[in-house]
């Protein structure tokens, strides 16, 4: 599914609270022992703070952070939560956190993470790590609550990060459990610093400092010891105990009761604390415990009372486990343990209230447009109808921001019968399933939706929440079906459904029109109708531009270039690339990946025009922008190979082709020049005919195959192999097959508007005629080829053919064909050191020249003289004649009299 990259994740309103580092309170107990260990920890790659909740992990990190900030050594902070279990989201937040401290880092990485086709995580991290290594001062990144991360892909990325962490980047992870990264290895290498529960517990001295100092109690040493023993230094417990004792007359009684039982400490103490609160506060605490984040107006809504702001301020002042999430005291959350106990109390005391409370929260969030929270609370309220409605309203946006996983997660909570009664939800769910590769599931959901849309459908029981979305639904269903057809390789079906989608889409639905046009254009491309494909793809690109989908527009421009080159429209291709580059470069890093591809396309174009310097320049521009996987690297190598061929380095070019083949990644569009066929052509240029023949056998291609578009390039390659075979072996059947194949290919190319192929076919037909001795026919074909090629400036299509083409051109020129254009091409066939680079083709030049005697005998053979007659004529033995002939054939690379004659003629020897 096309994705819109234009809504940067980093603009998420939640981001600010995730990057907000906790403020350390001056009243807290100082723990220099731990902050010193954290200081020392920056010498290791990773500092792990691993302990159950309530051990003061965040507090000690906050203290450390404050100390470092005071010394102008800022630290990056990221609070993780369970909705970060998506690799692109996770790493985007990581980079955003780093940027809060180092604004210039990670721009390229962020752009890649948000691109329509992001490269592999390791590639992105590699780039980020390189930038980190170049930092002038070390950057420390703290990941808080890492235990919420469950996705293995993220753990793997983290392990990769740790493996390659430069000295300038240090990681601190706070978690309730040891993260699944290779800790043992880090430990063994001395690259891990750990702070664990045993380290975090309050020592008796710290407990005393806390209770009597920070909390203002006046406990005896025995009291402190008793509490410390009961709680085992568990800080949260000591805090709760302190809260229970503040202002209490009978402290001794409390201590003895507390230490005299085995009850789960937190349970017991929270009960104590709650009991001591005024009724209104107690009620507030219980009812707002259902919220993950607290905000005064939200609390008012949930409690259905006012006064929340005042209560929140009181709670914060009283150190009652309220953690601020920003500097302006707008948002808070409860400490996890505290909230857990409150929730369980609420569940026990007022079970019937839960649904109501969650429902109120859901309404508030929905009114604020915070759909994810609204949905979560609706599900918790078990108000599934409401939840389903909210999911439906949010579905389109989730798809546009490329989070099909979120949509699928939400839909999981909704009963199937309900989903099936909701056509809008079913449709977007169907699209989301495609995003996850579940085509069958997608089809089922689209079918569900379509049933409601049928003209005669009985819409009894149908549920629609988003009426606007419902109105546009038929087009979405059609587009969904089109994608399914494409995935199944059903070109006709794709054309049918995407055409229908375009009919149904409104003029201003730019993003969707773009997607439908691009898909239809793609189908037509596979069908081989390049002109229509071009028109549709062009519309698609224009729509994407209007929708602001720069990345998609740039990709469109790249493929447009390919199409135009295939149609033989080189100057239009150049214009298209230039226009695409202007647009991409306006948008800086965000479109850099696409721009690199456009430069590569230009380089390939320059090669065709024999502007080899221009090609090199464009490849240089691409390198500056960065050659990033998945597809740009092999495209780059192919362009480089073409450039080398232009300079005559066939061996070097072949090596690059092999490397390109190794790193090739398939895309959605047809491959107009498959690497396998490119290699074969290169082999032919090097005279490696046997390898080329092996390819033909292995590929199962045959001259009488039914012709279709995508294999056109391979069939043209087959024709070349057949011609080469005739040249070497004199095998007339091969020549006849080539002739027949080319005739059929020519018609097909004509029909499909494939201009470049048309030129190549005529050129090959000229060779066939030449090989058959039909000079007039050869002239006719080459004349047509030149006529078609001249307006666009085609050059290397001819030059790459080497000396056989030179021979043809000479013939043509002397017959008055081709004009200046032909003469210029001829001039380009200069030898080494004699002017502009040519295709120096070892196969058509001779590695070893014929001796005078061999040449003499060859001429006599060409004249039709038999071997015995030659022996008589030259007064040498028959044996010698045969020997000379064998040597000559060997040097010419042929095995047959006829082939030898043709070859010698091509070489201008006869």
């Amino acid at each position, binding site marked *: 599914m096309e994705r819109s990259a234009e809504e940067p994740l980093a603009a998420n309103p939640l981001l600010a609270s995730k990057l907000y580092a906790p403020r350390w309170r001056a009243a807290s107990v100082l723990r220099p022992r731990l902050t010193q260990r954290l200081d020392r920890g920056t010498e290791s790659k990773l500092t792990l703070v691993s302990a159950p909740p309530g051990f003061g992990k965040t507090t000690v990190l906050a203290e450390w952070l404050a100390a470092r900030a005071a010394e102008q050594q800022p630290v990056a902070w990221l609070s993780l939560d369970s909705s970060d279990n998506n690799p692109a989201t996770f790493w985007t937040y990581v980079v955003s956190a780093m940027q809060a401290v180092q604004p210039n880092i990670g721009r390229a990485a962020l752009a890649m993470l948000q691109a329509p086709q992001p490269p592999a995580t390791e590639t992105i991290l590699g780039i980020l790590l390189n930038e980190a290594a170049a930092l002038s001062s070390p950057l420390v990144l703290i990941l808080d609550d890492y235990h919420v991360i469950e996705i293995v892909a993220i753990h793997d990325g983290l392990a990769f990060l740790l493996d390659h962490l430069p000295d300038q980047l240090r990681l601190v992870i706070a978690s309730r459990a040891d993260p699944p990264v290779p800790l043992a290895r880090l430990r063994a290498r001395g690259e891990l610093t750990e702070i664990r529960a045993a380290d975090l517990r309050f020592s008796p001295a710290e407990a005393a400092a806390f209770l009597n100092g920070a909390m203002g109690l006046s406990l005896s040493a025995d009291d402190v010891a008793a509490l410390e023993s009961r709680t085992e230094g568990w800080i*949260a417990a000591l805090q709760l105990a302190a809260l229970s004792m503040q202002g209490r007359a009978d402290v001794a009684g409390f201590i003895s009761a507390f230490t005299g039982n085995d009850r*789960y*400490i937190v349970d017991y103490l929270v009960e104590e604390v709650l009991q001591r609160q005024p009724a209104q506060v107690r009620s507030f605490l219980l009812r707002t415990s259902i919220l993950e984040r607290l905000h005064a107006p939200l609390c008012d809504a949930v409690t259905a009372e006012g006064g929340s702001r005042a209560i929140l301020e009181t709670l914060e002042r009283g150190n009652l486990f309220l953690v601020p999430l920003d500097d302006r005291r707008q948002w808070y959350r409860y400490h*996890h*343990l505290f909230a857990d106990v409150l929730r*369980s109390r609420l*569940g026990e005391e007022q079970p019937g209230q839960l649904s109501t409370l969650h429902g109120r929260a859901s309404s508030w969030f929905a009114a604020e447009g915070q759909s994810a929270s609204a949905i979560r609370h609706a599900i918790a309220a078990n108000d599934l109808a409401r939840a389903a409605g909210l999911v439906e309203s949010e579905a389109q946006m989730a798809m546009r921001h490329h989070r099909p996983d979120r949509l699928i997660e939400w839909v999981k909570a909704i009963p199937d019968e309900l989903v099936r009664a909701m056509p809008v939800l079913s449709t977007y769910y169907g699209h989301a399933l495609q995003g996850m590769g579940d085509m069958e599931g997608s089809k089922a959901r689209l079918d569900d939706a379509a049933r409601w849309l049928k003209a005669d459908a009985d819409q009894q029981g149908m549920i629609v929440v988003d009426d606007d979305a419902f109105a546009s639904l038929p087009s979405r269903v059609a587009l969904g079906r089109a994608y399914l057809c494409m995935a199944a390789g059903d070109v006709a079906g794709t054309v049918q459904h995407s055409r229908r989608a375009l009919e149904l889409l409104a003029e201003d639905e730019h993003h969707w029109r773009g997607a439908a046009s691009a898909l239809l254009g793609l189908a037509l491309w596979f069908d081989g109708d390049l002109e229509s494909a071009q028109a549709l793809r062009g519309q698609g690109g224009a729509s994407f531009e209007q929708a602001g989908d720069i990345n998609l527009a740039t990709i469109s421009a790249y493929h447009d270039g390919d199409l135009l080159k295939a149609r033989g429209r080189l100057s239009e291709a150049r214009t298209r690339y230039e226009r695409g580059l202007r647009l991409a470069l306006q948008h800086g890093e965000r479109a850099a990946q696409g721009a690199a591809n456009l430069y590569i396309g230009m380089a390939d174009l320059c090669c065709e025009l024999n502007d080899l310097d221009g090609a090199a320049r464009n490849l240089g521009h691409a390198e500056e922008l960065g050659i990033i996987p998945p597809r740009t690297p092999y495209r780059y190598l192919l362009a480089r190979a073409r450039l080398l061929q232009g300079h005559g380095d066939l061996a070097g070019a072949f090596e690059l082709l092999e490397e390109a083949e190794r790193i090739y990644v398939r895309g959605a569009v047809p491959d107009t020049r498959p690497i396998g066929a490119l290699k074969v052509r290169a082999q032919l240029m090097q005279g490696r005919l046997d390898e080329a023949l092996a390819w033909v056998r292995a590929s199962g291609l045959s001259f009488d195959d039914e012709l279709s578009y995508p294999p056109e390039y391979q069939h043209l390659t087959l024709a070349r192999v057949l011609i080469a075979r005739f040249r070497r072996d004199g095998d007339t059947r091969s020549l006849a097959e080539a002739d027949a194949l080319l005739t059929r290919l020519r018609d097909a190319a004509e029909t499909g508007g494939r201009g470049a192929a048309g030129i190549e076919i005529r050129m090959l037909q000229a060779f066939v005629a030449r090989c058959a001795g039909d000079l007039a026919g050869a002239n006719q074909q080459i004349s047509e080829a030149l006529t078609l090629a001249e307006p666009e400036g085609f050059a290397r299509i001819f030059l790459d053919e080497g000396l056989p083409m030179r021979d043809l051109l000479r013939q043509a020129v002397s017959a008055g064909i081709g004009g200046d254009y032909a003469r210029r091409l001829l001039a380009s066939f200069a030898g080494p050191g004699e002017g502009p680079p040519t295709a120096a083709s070892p196969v058509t030049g001779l590695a070893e020249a014929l001796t005078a005697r061999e040449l003499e005998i060859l001429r006599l053979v060409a004249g039709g003289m038999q071997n015995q007659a030659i022996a008589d004529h030259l007064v040498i033995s028959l044996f010698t004649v045969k020997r000379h002939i064998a040597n000559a054939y060997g040097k010419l690379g042929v095995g047959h009299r006829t082939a030898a004659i043709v070859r010698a003629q091509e070489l201008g020897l006869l």
Partner: protein
Amino acid sequence: MTATAGQARCCSDSQQYEIRLQGHLDSRWAERLEGMAFAFDGDGTTTLTGPLADQAALHGLLTRIRDLGLPIISIRRIDSDVQRPTDNSGQ
């Protein structure tokens, strides 16, 4: 369930588990903890007993226990056809 004792079971079968925790946890928490049965032992520990659908359910439960900060003393899978010694920590 007619498998004989000692025969390997697929890890996704429902099994009885017994988990011992440090401290007395009020049975009010039962709903949060997969509806396990609570028993308080004289040594200041709580024993949770009950069926869990599969390994995933077990790990989910252990995570919830972790998040309460309750130290786990032991986890035992109870084979249904092994005789348990009777005591007053009943099911």
